[in-house]
């Protein structure tokens, strides 16, 4: 149990650190700003209690907000995404449901399942975040474009990261 919690704390530090030190500093074309840290919430164990999920999401979002002067926007989007997670997991669950120790990774769940799950969750988070950030409707389509473009980039980075660092035979440390 302790080992499991410790592993999640390490994942948290690694992913939040990566977001702050690397992905927040991509200054390319003025549109691109992927928020890869949400993979921490996405790949938490299936058996995580719902209420704990919300609290973890709030803490993660607030940490990112603190380093990026966005004052609560990431927290709002991440909490909403965490709220949607149980329903989406149920919606796309495999035929015999999830076992308690199932790892949510493309190697275990299959690539198709993984990319469906990612697309749902990342788009929920990004669309919410970008609309809260802009907070006016006369930039509706440019915001939608930004949100979808960044969703695609985030999904691509997460998949690449999952195959690079993910557990193939039992050497995973960071991404579960």
């Amino acid at each position, binding site marked *: 149990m302790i080992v499991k919690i410790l592993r999640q704390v390490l994942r948290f530090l690694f992913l939040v650190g990566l977001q702050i030190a690397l992905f927040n500093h*991509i*200054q390319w074309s*003025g549109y691109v700003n992927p928020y890869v840290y949400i993979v921490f919430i996405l790949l938490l164990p299936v058996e995580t209690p719902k209420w704990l999920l919300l609290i973890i999401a709030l803490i993660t979002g607030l940490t990112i907000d*603190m380093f*990026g002067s966005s004052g*609560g926007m990431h927290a709002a989007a991440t909490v909403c995404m965490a*709220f949607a997670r149980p329903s989406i997991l149920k919606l796309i669950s495999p035929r015999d449901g999830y076992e308690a120790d199932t790892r949510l990774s493309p190697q275990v769940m299959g690539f198709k399942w993984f990319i469906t799950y990612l697309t749902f969750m990342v788009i929920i988070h990004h669309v919410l975040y970008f609309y809260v*950030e802009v907070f006016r409707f006369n930039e509706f389509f440019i915001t939608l474009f930004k949100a979808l473009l960044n969703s695609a980039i985030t999904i691509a980075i997460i998949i690449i990261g999952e195959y690079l660092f993910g557990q193939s035979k039992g050497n995973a440390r960071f991404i579960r």
Partner: protein
Amino acid sequence: MRNLFLFLWKYNFFIFFLLLEVFCGYLIFQNNNFQRSSFINSTNAVSAKVNSAISGVTDYIDLRTTNEALSRENAALKALLPDAFYIDSALDRVSTDTLLKQQYSFMTAKVINNSVNRRNNYLTLNKGSLLGVKPEMGVISSDGIVGIVKDVSEHYCSVMSFLHKDSRISARIKKSGFIGSMVWDGFDETHASLKDIAKHVKVAKGDTIITSSFSSIFPEGIMIGLVEEVVDGGGTNFQEISVKLSTPFGKLTYVYIINNVFKDEQRALEEPLKNDR
């Protein structure tokens, strides 16, 4: 009453979610409110230290361009020194001027965190309230305007970049003297638009845009950019002017924080008129 509790219990997950969202909404509202400083911001001890360490690494990448910009500025300033002028008269002129009083003081600061790719961008600088930085001071770089100080902690301050949906800076066309306001449309870090210039005003490509004397934050005549494109604004009375910004927002390293000594006086004088506008 019992039914109420049953209802609350049945939807406890959803209600908990709503509570957290309301909390986040409160934080966002507080952050957007310029007058009140927010408590989740990047000037607190931990995040400022981490951002400072990160910028310590990334600064090496920009070292060459930073040095070039600084030496260019040094050259421009040296040209203003008394030694640089040839004195064309036999008499030594001693200037003990009692008419000139310092209105603006400048403080250098290092950028330790910066973004250009969001709709609302912020910078974090390494000077804080211990050195006299206060909210609503202007920030410029050697190339032009940068933004306005928002939150201040002991050693750091966060700056609302000009690249922000709420930024609006009073600007003047240098040649003709007409006043408009600069806003950022959120598309491109190198361009912004100049609003409120009436159609009869002649604006040409390449005209210089500087800050006007209306603002109590920026001194008059700070460079903003050059006119890049002028489009007739359709059914409105105004032209649509696209301006290429002179400040390279993507690679700011050293900036100046401006303190207007007479700001409070100007504000106090203008305060009673606010409701009339």
